[in-house]
Protein backbone atom coordinates (compact mmCIF):
# COMPACT_ATOMS: atom_id res chain seq x y z
CA UNK A 1 0.00 0.00 0.00
CA UNK A 2 1.78 3.10 -1.25
CA UNK A 3 0.58 5.94 0.94
CA UNK A 4 -1.08 6.27 4.33
CA UNK A 5 -4.86 6.06 4.23
CA UNK A 6 -6.42 9.12 5.82
CA UNK A 7 -9.41 8.31 7.98
CA UNK A 8 -11.03 10.64 10.52
CA UNK A 9 -7.86 12.66 10.89
CA UNK A 10 -5.68 9.60 11.40
CA UNK A 11 -2.95 8.32 9.10
CA UNK A 12 -3.46 4.55 8.84
CA UNK A 13 -0.16 3.03 7.77
CA UNK A 14 -0.09 -0.43 6.19
CA UNK A 15 3.20 -0.76 4.30
CA UNK A 16 3.85 -3.41 1.66
CA UNK A 17 5.94 -5.39 4.12
CA UNK A 18 3.18 -5.45 6.77
CA UNK A 19 2.96 -9.20 7.07
CA UNK A 20 0.13 -8.97 9.59
CA UNK A 21 -2.40 -6.52 8.17
CA UNK A 22 -1.84 -5.90 4.44
CA UNK A 23 -3.79 -8.91 3.17
CA UNK A 24 -6.36 -8.64 5.95
CA UNK A 25 -7.37 -5.21 4.65
CA UNK A 26 -7.30 -6.34 1.03
CA UNK A 27 -9.75 -9.10 1.91
CA UNK A 28 -11.84 -6.55 3.79
CA UNK A 29 -11.87 -4.35 0.69
CA UNK A 30 -13.40 -7.34 -1.16
CA UNK A 31 -15.88 -7.42 1.74
CA UNK A 32 -14.60 -10.61 3.27
CA UNK A 33 -13.84 -10.83 7.00
CA UNK A 34 -10.88 -13.15 7.41
CA UNK A 35 -8.91 -14.57 10.32
CA UNK A 36 -5.85 -16.79 10.39
CA UNK A 37 -6.40 -20.51 10.70
CA UNK A 38 -3.62 -22.79 11.96
CA UNK A 39 -2.58 -25.41 9.40
CA UNK A 40 -1.69 -27.85 12.18
CA UNK A 41 -4.48 -27.70 14.77
CA UNK A 42 -7.15 -25.87 12.80
CA UNK A 43 -7.85 -23.20 15.42
CA UNK A 44 -8.52 -19.65 14.23
CA UNK A 45 -7.08 -16.47 15.71
CA UNK A 46 -7.49 -12.71 15.55
CA UNK A 47 -5.69 -10.29 15.25
CA UNK A 48 -3.32 -11.64 12.57
CA UNK A 49 -0.22 -13.16 14.17
CA UNK A 50 2.63 -15.38 13.04
CA UNK A 51 2.44 -18.48 15.20
CA UNK A 52 -0.46 -20.42 16.61
CA UNK A 53 -0.94 -19.43 20.29
CA UNK A 54 -2.13 -22.97 21.04
CA UNK A 55 0.35 -25.21 19.15
CA UNK A 56 3.07 -22.73 18.02
CA UNK A 57 2.86 -23.93 14.41
CA UNK A 58 4.00 -21.35 11.88
CA UNK A 59 1.68 -22.47 9.09
CA UNK A 60 -1.61 -20.67 8.52
CA UNK A 61 -4.14 -19.76 5.88
CA UNK A 62 -6.68 -16.96 5.67
CA UNK A 63 -10.12 -18.25 6.60
CA UNK A 64 -13.27 -16.30 5.83
CA UNK A 65 -15.77 -16.15 8.71
CA UNK A 66 -19.47 -15.36 8.60
CA UNK A 67 -19.14 -11.96 10.27
CA UNK A 68 -22.06 -12.81 12.54
CA UNK A 69 -21.72 -12.49 16.26
CA UNK A 70 -22.93 -11.06 19.55
CA UNK A 71 -21.98 -7.93 21.50
CA UNK A 72 -19.78 -9.23 24.33
CA UNK A 73 -19.02 -5.83 25.88
CA UNK A 74 -19.01 -2.19 24.88
CA UNK A 75 -18.30 1.40 25.83
CA UNK A 76 -19.86 4.70 24.89
CA UNK A 77 -17.29 7.41 24.20
CA UNK A 78 -18.69 10.76 25.30
CA UNK A 79 -15.37 12.63 25.35
CA UNK A 80 -13.40 11.81 22.21
CA UNK A 81 -9.61 11.92 22.33
CA UNK A 82 -8.97 11.88 18.59
CA UNK A 83 -10.02 15.13 16.89
CA UNK A 84 -11.73 13.27 14.03
CA UNK A 85 -14.10 11.55 16.43
CA UNK A 86 -15.29 14.63 18.31
CA UNK A 87 -18.20 15.28 15.96
CA UNK A 88 -19.36 11.65 16.29
CA UNK A 89 -19.84 11.57 20.07
CA UNK A 90 -21.43 9.78 21.73
CA UNK A 91 -20.24 6.74 19.78
CA UNK A 92 -20.14 3.05 20.66
CA UNK A 93 -17.05 0.88 20.59
CA UNK A 94 -18.14 -2.75 20.76
CA UNK A 95 -16.34 -5.99 21.51
CA UNK A 96 -17.92 -8.59 19.23
CA UNK A 97 -17.77 -12.31 19.88
CA UNK A 98 -17.95 -14.07 16.51
CA UNK A 99 -20.12 -17.17 16.09
CA UNK A 100 -17.21 -19.33 14.95
CA UNK A 101 -15.10 -21.02 17.62
CA UNK A 102 -17.01 -19.69 20.65
CA UNK A 103 -15.74 -21.26 23.87
CA UNK A 104 -12.86 -22.99 22.14
CA UNK A 105 -10.32 -24.31 22.87
CA UNK A 106 -11.24 -23.38 26.47
CA UNK A 107 -14.55 -22.07 27.79
CA UNK A 108 -13.45 -18.44 28.08
CA UNK A 109 -11.77 -18.15 24.70
CA UNK A 110 -13.37 -16.91 21.51
CA UNK A 111 -12.74 -14.95 18.32
CA UNK A 112 -13.41 -11.41 19.48
CA UNK A 113 -13.12 -8.23 17.44
CA UNK A 114 -13.21 -4.52 18.30
CA UNK A 115 -15.27 -2.24 16.05
CA UNK A 116 -17.84 0.52 16.07
CA UNK A 117 -21.53 -0.25 16.12
CA UNK A 118 -22.78 1.68 13.11
CA UNK A 119 -25.88 2.46 11.07
CA UNK A 120 -25.96 1.81 7.30
CA UNK A 121 -24.26 5.16 6.60
CA UNK A 122 -21.49 4.29 9.10
CA UNK A 123 -22.60 6.91 11.61
CA UNK A 124 -22.80 5.66 15.22
CA UNK A 125 -25.79 3.54 16.22
CA UNK A 126 -27.72 5.52 18.86
CA UNK A 127 -26.67 4.63 22.37
CA UNK A 128 -30.13 3.39 23.37
CA UNK A 129 -29.76 0.51 20.90
CA UNK A 130 -26.41 -0.71 22.22
CA UNK A 131 -26.52 -3.64 24.64
CA UNK A 132 -24.51 -6.68 25.61
CA UNK A 133 -26.17 -9.73 24.05
CA UNK A 134 -27.45 -8.10 20.86
CA UNK A 135 -26.84 -9.87 17.54
CA UNK A 136 -24.71 -8.11 14.95
CA UNK A 137 -23.24 -8.64 11.51
CA UNK A 138 -20.17 -7.26 9.80
CA UNK A 139 -20.28 -4.42 7.25
CA UNK A 140 -17.34 -2.91 5.41
CA UNK A 141 -16.44 0.74 5.36
CA UNK A 142 -14.41 1.33 2.15
CA UNK A 143 -11.51 3.70 2.78
CA UNK A 144 -9.32 3.30 -0.31
CA UNK A 145 -8.84 1.04 -3.35
CA UNK A 146 -6.97 -1.46 -1.22
CA UNK A 147 -8.46 -0.97 2.21
CA UNK A 148 -11.78 -1.25 4.03
CA UNK A 149 -12.48 -1.19 7.72
CA UNK A 150 -14.68 -3.97 9.15
CA UNK A 151 -17.52 -2.50 11.19
CA UNK A 152 -20.61 -4.04 12.78
CA UNK A 153 -24.28 -3.27 12.56
CA UNK A 154 -27.30 -4.60 14.43
CA UNK A 155 -28.86 -7.65 12.76
CA UNK A 156 -32.51 -8.65 12.62
CA UNK A 157 -31.93 -11.84 14.57
CA UNK A 158 -33.44 -12.02 18.05
CA UNK A 159 -30.97 -12.04 20.95
CA UNK A 160 -30.44 -15.59 22.17
CA UNK A 161 -29.72 -14.64 25.78
CA UNK A 162 -29.86 -11.85 28.32
CA UNK A 163 -29.70 -8.26 27.06
CA UNK A 164 -27.95 -5.75 29.28
CA UNK A 165 -27.04 -2.11 29.02
CA UNK A 166 -25.62 0.36 31.51
CA UNK A 167 -28.52 1.73 33.58
CA UNK A 168 -29.46 5.41 33.17
Amino acid at each position, binding site marked *: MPQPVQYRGMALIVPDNDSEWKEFYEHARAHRLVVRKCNACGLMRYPPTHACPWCMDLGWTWQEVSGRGTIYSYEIVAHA*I*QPGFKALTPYAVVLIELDEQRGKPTADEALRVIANLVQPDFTPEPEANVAIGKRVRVVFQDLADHMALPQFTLSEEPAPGRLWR*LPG
Partner: protein
Amino acid sequence: MNTLRDKYCIVGVGETEYSRSSRRTTRAMAVEAIRKAILDAGLKAADVDGMLDYQGGDSTLANSVASDLGIRFNFYMDVMGGGSSTEALVGLAMGAIEAGMCNTVAIYRSMNGYSEFRIGGTGARAAQPVRGLDLAQVPYGMRSAGQNFAPTFMRHMYEYGTTSEQVAHVRVAHSKHASQNPKALLKERVTVQDVLNSRWIVKPLHLLDCCLETDNATCIIVTSTERARNLKHRPAYIMGVAGRVSKPRLDFHWAHGPISRVAGYYAKDIVFPQAGITPEDVDVTGSYDAFTFTTMLQLEEYGFCKKGEGGAYVSSGIIELGGKRPNNTSGSHLCEGYTHGMSMVIENVRQLRGTVDDYCPRATDGVHTYDYSPGHCRQVKDVEITMNLGWAMPATGSALIMRR
Protein backbone atom coordinates in the same frame (compact mmCIF):
# COMPACT_ATOMS: atom_id res chain seq x y z
CA MET B 1 9.33 -21.75 47.36
CA ASN B 2 12.55 -19.87 46.70
CA THR B 3 12.12 -16.53 48.40
CA LEU B 4 14.24 -13.51 49.26
CA ARG B 5 11.77 -12.49 51.95
CA ASP B 6 13.11 -9.77 54.25
CA LYS B 7 16.55 -9.79 52.61
CA TYR B 8 15.95 -6.49 50.78
CA CYS B 9 14.45 -3.18 51.81
CA ILE B 10 13.30 0.18 50.57
CA VAL B 11 15.43 2.63 52.55
CA GLY B 12 14.83 5.96 50.85
CA VAL B 13 11.96 7.76 49.12
CA GLY B 14 11.74 11.08 47.32
CA GLU B 15 9.29 13.02 45.18
CA THR B 16 8.85 16.42 43.58
CA GLU B 17 5.80 18.65 43.73
CA TYR B 18 2.63 17.28 42.13
CA SER B 19 1.63 19.94 39.60
CA ARG B 20 0.12 20.55 36.20
CA SER B 21 2.83 22.95 35.14
CA SER B 22 6.33 21.95 36.22
CA ARG B 23 7.98 24.47 33.87
CA ARG B 24 11.10 22.30 33.79
CA THR B 25 12.48 19.15 32.21
CA THR B 26 11.97 15.58 33.33
CA ARG B 27 15.74 15.59 33.89
CA ALA B 28 15.49 18.39 36.43
CA MET B 29 12.62 16.70 38.24
CA ALA B 30 14.31 13.29 38.27
CA VAL B 31 17.47 14.79 39.75
CA GLU B 32 15.47 16.44 42.53
CA ALA B 33 13.52 13.27 43.37
CA ILE B 34 16.60 11.03 43.37
CA ARG B 35 18.60 13.47 45.49
CA LYS B 36 15.76 13.63 48.02
CA ALA B 37 15.57 9.84 48.19
CA ILE B 38 19.34 9.53 48.69
CA LEU B 39 19.28 12.09 51.49
CA ASP B 40 16.15 10.52 52.98
CA ALA B 41 18.01 7.22 53.20
CA GLY B 42 21.01 8.85 54.82
CA LEU B 43 23.21 7.88 51.87
CA LYS B 44 25.64 9.78 49.67
CA ALA B 45 25.71 9.77 45.87
CA ALA B 46 28.72 7.47 45.92
CA ASP B 47 26.68 4.86 47.83
CA VAL B 48 24.23 4.47 44.94
CA ASP B 49 25.76 2.28 42.23
CA GLY B 50 22.65 1.03 40.46
CA MET B 51 19.74 2.73 38.70
CA LEU B 52 16.51 1.67 37.03
CA ASP B 53 13.86 3.86 35.49
CA TYR B 54 10.76 3.38 33.39
CA GLN B 55 9.22 5.57 30.75
CA GLY B 56 7.33 5.63 27.50
CA GLY B 57 9.46 7.90 25.32
CA ASP B 58 8.47 10.75 27.62
CA SER B 59 11.34 11.03 30.08
CA THR B 60 15.09 11.43 30.66
CA LEU B 61 17.33 8.37 30.80
CA ALA B 62 19.56 7.34 33.69
CA ASN B 63 22.86 8.38 32.09
CA SER B 64 21.97 12.08 32.28
CA VAL B 65 20.50 12.20 35.74
CA ALA B 66 23.27 10.09 37.25
CA SER B 67 25.90 12.36 35.75
CA ASP B 68 24.12 15.39 37.19
CA LEU B 69 24.30 13.81 40.65
CA GLY B 70 27.86 12.48 40.39
CA ILE B 71 26.77 8.83 40.44
CA ARG B 72 28.97 6.19 38.76
CA PHE B 73 27.15 2.98 37.83
CA ASN B 74 27.91 -0.66 38.38
CA PHE B 75 24.47 -1.36 36.92
CA TYR B 76 21.74 0.56 35.16
CA MET B 77 18.88 0.00 32.72
CA ASP B 78 16.18 2.15 31.20
CA VAL B 79 12.96 0.24 30.81
CA MET B 80 9.84 0.83 28.71
CA GLY B 81 6.77 0.82 30.88
CA GLY B 82 4.12 2.70 32.78
CA GLY B 83 1.90 1.52 35.61
CA SER B 84 2.96 -1.68 37.42
CA SER B 85 6.63 -1.03 36.56
CA THR B 86 7.58 0.18 40.07
CA GLU B 87 6.96 -3.16 41.76
CA ALA B 88 8.56 -5.12 38.92
CA LEU B 89 11.68 -2.96 39.06
CA VAL B 90 11.93 -3.45 42.83
CA GLY B 91 12.22 -7.16 42.05
CA LEU B 92 14.81 -6.53 39.34
CA ALA B 93 16.84 -4.33 41.71
CA MET B 94 16.82 -7.14 44.27
CA GLY B 95 17.96 -9.55 41.59
CA ALA B 96 20.81 -7.28 40.47
CA ILE B 97 22.05 -6.92 44.05
CA GLU B 98 21.59 -10.63 44.74
CA ALA B 99 23.65 -11.41 41.63
CA GLY B 100 26.47 -9.28 42.98
CA MET B 101 26.15 -6.74 40.19
CA CYS B 102 25.72 -3.76 42.51
CA ASN B 103 24.81 -2.78 46.08
CA THR B 104 22.18 -0.08 46.09
CA VAL B 105 19.67 0.79 43.36
CA ALA B 106 17.73 4.03 42.83
CA ILE B 107 14.49 3.53 40.87
CA TYR B 108 12.82 6.60 39.41
CA ARG B 109 9.97 7.78 37.22
CA SER B 110 9.87 11.35 35.92
CA MET B 111 7.08 12.66 33.71
CA ASN B 112 5.53 15.92 32.59
CA GLY B 113 2.31 13.94 32.36
CA TYR B 114 0.14 17.03 31.98
CA SER B 115 2.23 19.81 30.49
CA GLU B 116 4.11 17.71 27.92
CA PHE B 117 2.99 14.11 27.22
CA ARG B 118 -0.59 13.56 28.31
CA ILE B 119 -1.26 9.94 29.02
CA GLY B 120 -4.88 10.32 28.02
CA GLY B 121 -3.79 10.17 24.40
CA THR B 122 -4.50 13.80 23.65
CA GLY B 123 -1.94 16.23 22.24
CA ALA B 124 1.21 14.68 20.78
CA ARG B 125 0.01 11.13 21.35
CA ALA B 126 -3.29 11.63 19.47
CA ALA B 127 -1.47 12.78 16.33
CA GLN B 128 0.70 9.67 15.99
CA PRO B 129 0.11 7.54 12.86
CA VAL B 130 -1.73 4.25 13.38
CA ARG B 131 0.08 1.04 12.43
CA GLY B 132 0.66 -2.52 13.56
CA LEU B 133 -1.41 -3.82 16.42
CA ASP B 134 -2.94 -0.36 16.96
CA LEU B 135 -4.98 -1.01 13.81
CA ALA B 136 -7.12 -3.45 15.79
CA GLN B 137 -8.49 -0.67 18.02
CA VAL B 138 -7.36 2.89 17.31
CA PRO B 139 -9.27 3.38 14.00
CA TYR B 140 -12.44 2.76 16.03
CA GLY B 141 -11.82 5.72 18.32
CA MET B 142 -10.31 3.59 21.06
CA ARG B 143 -6.99 5.07 22.05
CA SER B 144 -6.84 6.44 25.61
CA ALA B 145 -6.38 4.32 28.71
CA GLY B 146 -10.02 4.83 29.71
CA GLN B 147 -11.20 3.77 26.26
CA ASN B 148 -8.92 0.73 26.38
CA PHE B 149 -10.19 -0.44 29.76
CA ALA B 150 -13.90 0.47 29.68
CA PRO B 151 -15.16 -2.80 28.09
CA THR B 152 -13.51 -4.68 30.95
CA PHE B 153 -15.36 -2.55 33.50
CA MET B 154 -18.64 -2.84 31.58
CA ARG B 155 -18.39 -6.62 31.41
CA HIS B 156 -17.77 -6.76 35.16
CA MET B 157 -20.99 -4.79 35.72
CA TYR B 158 -22.85 -7.20 33.42
CA GLU B 159 -21.47 -10.35 35.04
CA TYR B 160 -21.57 -9.33 38.70
CA GLY B 161 -24.09 -6.49 38.98
CA THR B 162 -21.41 -4.00 40.02
CA THR B 163 -22.80 -0.45 40.02
CA SER B 164 -21.48 3.04 39.34
CA GLU B 165 -22.50 3.98 42.88
CA GLN B 166 -20.35 1.24 44.39
CA VAL B 167 -17.16 2.13 42.56
CA ALA B 168 -17.76 5.86 43.16
CA HIS B 169 -16.85 5.07 46.78
CA VAL B 170 -13.25 4.59 45.67
CA ARG B 171 -13.13 8.27 44.67
CA VAL B 172 -14.91 9.22 47.88
CA ALA B 173 -12.34 7.35 49.98
CA HIS B 174 -9.33 8.65 48.08
CA SER B 175 -10.61 12.23 48.23
CA LYS B 176 -10.97 11.84 51.99
CA HIS B 177 -7.36 10.71 52.15
CA ALA B 178 -6.21 13.57 49.91
CA SER B 179 -7.83 16.06 52.28
CA GLN B 180 -5.11 15.02 54.75
CA ASN B 181 -2.33 15.43 52.20
CA PRO B 182 -0.67 18.83 51.74
CA LYS B 183 0.87 17.57 48.47
CA ALA B 184 -2.41 16.55 46.82
CA LEU B 185 -3.62 18.38 43.72
CA LEU B 186 -7.27 17.89 44.72
CA LYS B 187 -7.85 18.18 48.47
CA GLU B 188 -11.63 18.62 48.38
CA ARG B 189 -13.69 15.70 49.68
CA VAL B 190 -16.34 14.50 47.25
CA THR B 191 -19.55 12.49 47.63
CA VAL B 192 -20.91 9.55 45.66
CA GLN B 193 -23.39 11.98 44.09
CA ASP B 194 -20.54 14.28 42.99
CA VAL B 195 -18.99 11.36 41.12
CA LEU B 196 -22.28 10.31 39.52
CA ASN B 197 -23.10 13.90 38.55
CA SER B 198 -19.73 14.50 36.89
CA ARG B 199 -19.78 14.33 33.10
CA TRP B 200 -19.28 11.11 31.20
CA ILE B 201 -15.85 10.50 29.69
CA VAL B 202 -16.35 7.01 28.32
CA LYS B 203 -19.20 5.02 29.79
CA PRO B 204 -19.05 3.52 32.37
CA LEU B 205 -16.44 6.11 33.48
CA HIS B 206 -17.43 9.55 34.74
CA LEU B 207 -14.86 12.34 34.95
CA LEU B 208 -14.37 11.66 38.66
CA ASP B 209 -13.79 7.95 38.02
CA CYS B 210 -10.58 9.00 36.24
CA CYS B 211 -7.19 10.01 37.64
CA LEU B 212 -5.32 13.29 37.24
CA GLU B 213 -2.64 13.73 34.61
CA THR B 214 0.30 15.26 36.46
CA ASP B 215 3.87 16.58 36.24
CA ASN B 216 5.99 14.83 38.84
CA ALA B 217 9.05 12.72 39.57
CA THR B 218 9.38 9.97 42.18
CA CYS B 219 12.23 7.81 43.45
CA ILE B 220 12.76 4.88 45.81
CA ILE B 221 16.02 3.28 46.90
CA VAL B 222 16.44 -0.47 47.29
CA THR B 223 19.32 -2.11 49.12
CA SER B 224 20.09 -5.21 51.16
CA THR B 225 18.84 -5.59 54.71
CA GLU B 226 22.43 -5.82 55.84
CA ARG B 227 23.23 -2.45 54.26
CA ALA B 228 19.98 -0.98 55.58
CA ARG B 229 20.89 -1.53 59.23
CA ASN B 230 22.97 1.61 59.62
CA LEU B 231 20.73 3.96 57.65
CA LYS B 232 18.49 6.78 58.77
CA HIS B 233 14.99 5.25 58.85
CA ARG B 234 13.42 2.01 59.88
CA PRO B 235 13.61 0.01 56.62
CA ALA B 236 10.54 -1.23 54.78
CA TYR B 237 11.30 -4.94 54.40
CA ILE B 238 10.29 -6.55 51.11
CA MET B 239 8.37 -9.75 51.82
CA GLY B 240 7.28 -10.57 48.30
CA VAL B 241 7.19 -9.13 44.81
CA ALA B 242 5.57 -10.10 41.52
CA GLY B 243 5.71 -8.26 38.19
CA ARG B 244 4.85 -7.67 35.39
CA VAL B 245 2.53 -10.65 35.39
CA SER B 246 0.24 -11.02 32.42
CA LYS B 247 -2.89 -12.74 31.20
CA PRO B 248 -2.73 -14.96 28.11
CA ARG B 249 -2.90 -13.33 24.64
CA LEU B 250 -1.36 -10.13 25.94
CA ASP B 251 -1.39 -8.55 22.46
CA PHE B 252 -5.20 -8.69 22.42
CA HIS B 253 -6.36 -9.93 25.80
CA TRP B 254 -10.00 -9.73 24.74
CA ALA B 255 -9.44 -13.08 23.01
CA HIS B 256 -8.92 -14.90 26.28
CA GLY B 257 -11.61 -14.23 28.86
CA PRO B 258 -13.09 -13.85 31.25
CA ILE B 259 -12.32 -10.26 30.35
CA SER B 260 -13.52 -9.17 33.82
CA ARG B 261 -10.50 -11.03 35.21
CA VAL B 262 -7.28 -9.02 35.65
CA ALA B 263 -3.62 -9.99 35.94
CA GLY B 264 -3.76 -10.20 39.73
CA TYR B 265 -5.43 -13.56 39.21
CA TYR B 266 -1.96 -14.88 38.32
CA ALA B 267 0.21 -12.52 40.41
CA LYS B 268 -1.44 -13.43 43.71
CA ASP B 269 -0.16 -17.00 43.47
CA ILE B 270 3.39 -15.67 43.25
CA VAL B 271 3.41 -12.89 45.80
CA PHE B 272 1.43 -14.29 48.73
CA PRO B 273 3.40 -17.56 49.00
CA GLN B 274 6.66 -15.58 48.83
CA ALA B 275 5.53 -13.40 51.71
CA GLY B 276 3.96 -16.26 53.63
CA ILE B 277 0.83 -14.26 54.38
CA THR B 278 -2.79 -13.99 53.26
CA PRO B 279 -4.83 -10.90 52.36
CA GLU B 280 -6.22 -10.88 55.92
CA ASP B 281 -2.73 -10.04 57.22
CA VAL B 282 -2.46 -6.83 55.17
CA ASP B 283 -3.14 -3.56 57.06
CA VAL B 284 -2.94 -1.04 54.20
CA THR B 285 -3.38 -1.59 50.47
CA GLY B 286 -2.18 0.49 47.53
CA SER B 287 -4.41 -0.67 44.71
CA TYR B 288 -3.55 1.38 41.62
CA ASP B 289 -6.24 3.93 40.89
CA ALA B 290 -5.84 4.96 37.30
CA PHE B 291 -9.61 4.66 37.55
CA THR B 292 -11.98 3.83 40.41
CA PHE B 293 -12.60 0.48 38.70
CA THR B 294 -8.92 -0.52 38.63
CA THR B 295 -8.71 -0.24 42.40
CA MET B 296 -11.85 -2.36 42.80
CA LEU B 297 -10.91 -5.03 40.25
CA GLN B 298 -7.49 -5.63 41.76
CA LEU B 299 -8.60 -5.74 45.39
CA GLU B 300 -11.11 -8.37 44.33
CA GLU B 301 -8.70 -10.38 42.19
CA TYR B 302 -6.04 -10.54 44.91
CA GLY B 303 -8.59 -11.98 47.30
CA PHE B 304 -9.40 -9.10 49.64
CA CYS B 305 -12.96 -10.15 48.91
CA LYS B 306 -14.55 -12.82 46.75
CA LYS B 307 -14.43 -12.48 42.95
CA GLY B 308 -17.41 -10.40 41.91
CA GLU B 309 -17.82 -8.74 45.32
CA GLY B 310 -15.39 -5.88 44.68
CA GLY B 311 -18.23 -3.38 44.42
CA ALA B 312 -19.50 -4.29 47.86
CA TYR B 313 -15.96 -4.29 49.29
CA VAL B 314 -14.99 -0.80 48.11
CA SER B 315 -18.33 0.69 49.18
CA SER B 316 -18.26 -0.83 52.68
CA GLY B 317 -15.98 1.73 54.33
CA ILE B 318 -13.16 -0.81 54.66
CA ILE B 319 -10.91 1.09 52.24
CA GLU B 320 -11.26 4.48 53.99
CA LEU B 321 -9.01 5.91 56.69
CA GLY B 322 -10.53 4.64 59.92
CA GLY B 323 -11.70 1.50 58.12
CA LYS B 324 -10.25 -1.95 58.52
CA ARG B 325 -7.85 -1.79 55.57
CA PRO B 326 -7.44 1.69 54.05
CA ASN B 327 -6.41 1.90 50.40
CA ASN B 328 -4.12 4.56 48.91
CA THR B 329 -3.95 6.77 51.98
CA SER B 330 -2.31 9.64 50.04
CA GLY B 331 -5.34 10.07 47.78
CA SER B 332 -3.12 8.72 45.07
CA HIS B 333 -3.67 8.95 41.32
CA LEU B 334 -7.30 10.02 41.59
CA CYS B 335 -6.56 12.98 43.89
CA GLU B 336 -2.89 13.45 44.76
CA GLY B 337 -1.54 13.17 41.20
CA TYR B 338 -0.64 10.60 38.60
CA THR B 339 2.87 9.10 38.77
CA HIS B 340 2.56 5.65 37.19
CA GLY B 341 2.44 4.00 40.58
CA MET B 342 5.59 4.87 42.44
CA SER B 343 3.89 7.38 44.74
CA MET B 344 1.75 4.52 46.12
CA VAL B 345 4.86 2.59 47.10
CA ILE B 346 6.34 5.74 48.66
CA GLU B 347 3.16 6.24 50.67
CA ASN B 348 3.26 2.70 52.01
CA VAL B 349 6.93 3.03 52.98
CA ARG B 350 5.99 6.11 55.00
CA GLN B 351 3.00 4.29 56.52
CA LEU B 352 5.34 1.53 57.69
CA ARG B 353 7.75 4.08 59.14
CA GLY B 354 4.90 5.91 60.87
CA THR B 355 5.99 9.18 59.29
CA VAL B 356 3.32 9.95 56.72
CA ASP B 357 3.61 13.61 55.69
CA ASP B 358 0.13 14.80 56.67
CA TYR B 359 -0.92 17.97 58.54
CA CYS B 360 0.17 16.71 61.97
CA PRO B 361 2.81 19.22 63.19
CA ARG B 362 5.30 16.53 64.18
CA ALA B 363 4.41 14.02 61.46
CA THR B 364 7.97 13.55 60.27
CA ASP B 365 9.00 12.58 63.83
CA GLY B 366 6.27 9.95 63.82
CA VAL B 367 3.92 11.85 66.13
CA HIS B 368 0.33 11.68 64.86
CA THR B 369 -3.13 12.62 66.13
CA TYR B 370 -5.06 9.94 64.18
CA ASP B 371 -7.74 12.59 63.74
CA TYR B 372 -9.22 11.76 60.34
CA SER B 373 -11.40 14.86 60.04
CA PRO B 374 -10.41 17.08 57.06
CA GLY B 375 -7.03 18.79 57.22
CA HIS B 376 -5.48 16.57 59.85
CA CYS B 377 -3.96 13.08 60.03
CA ARG B 378 -3.64 10.24 57.51
CA GLN B 379 -1.31 7.95 59.41
CA VAL B 380 -2.82 4.52 60.03
CA LYS B 381 -2.18 3.17 63.54
CA ASP B 382 0.32 0.33 63.99
CA VAL B 383 0.82 -0.59 60.35
CA GLU B 384 2.66 -3.90 60.16
CA ILE B 385 2.15 -5.01 56.55
CA THR B 386 1.32 -3.10 53.36
CA MET B 387 0.61 -4.34 49.86
CA ASN B 388 0.84 -2.53 46.52
CA LEU B 389 -1.21 -3.74 43.58
CA GLY B 390 0.23 -2.22 40.41
CA TRP B 391 -1.81 -1.92 37.23
CA ALA B 392 -0.65 -1.42 33.64
CA MET B 393 -3.81 -2.66 31.96
CA PRO B 394 -6.34 -5.43 32.58
CA ALA B 395 -3.84 -8.01 31.32
CA THR B 396 -0.68 -6.80 33.10
CA GLY B 397 -0.04 -6.11 36.76
CA SER B 398 2.46 -6.30 39.61
CA ALA B 399 2.41 -6.66 43.39
CA LEU B 400 4.68 -5.79 46.31
CA ILE B 401 4.27 -6.79 49.96
CA MET B 402 6.30 -4.92 52.57
CA ARG B 403 6.49 -5.09 56.38
CA ARG B 404 7.95 -2.85 59.03
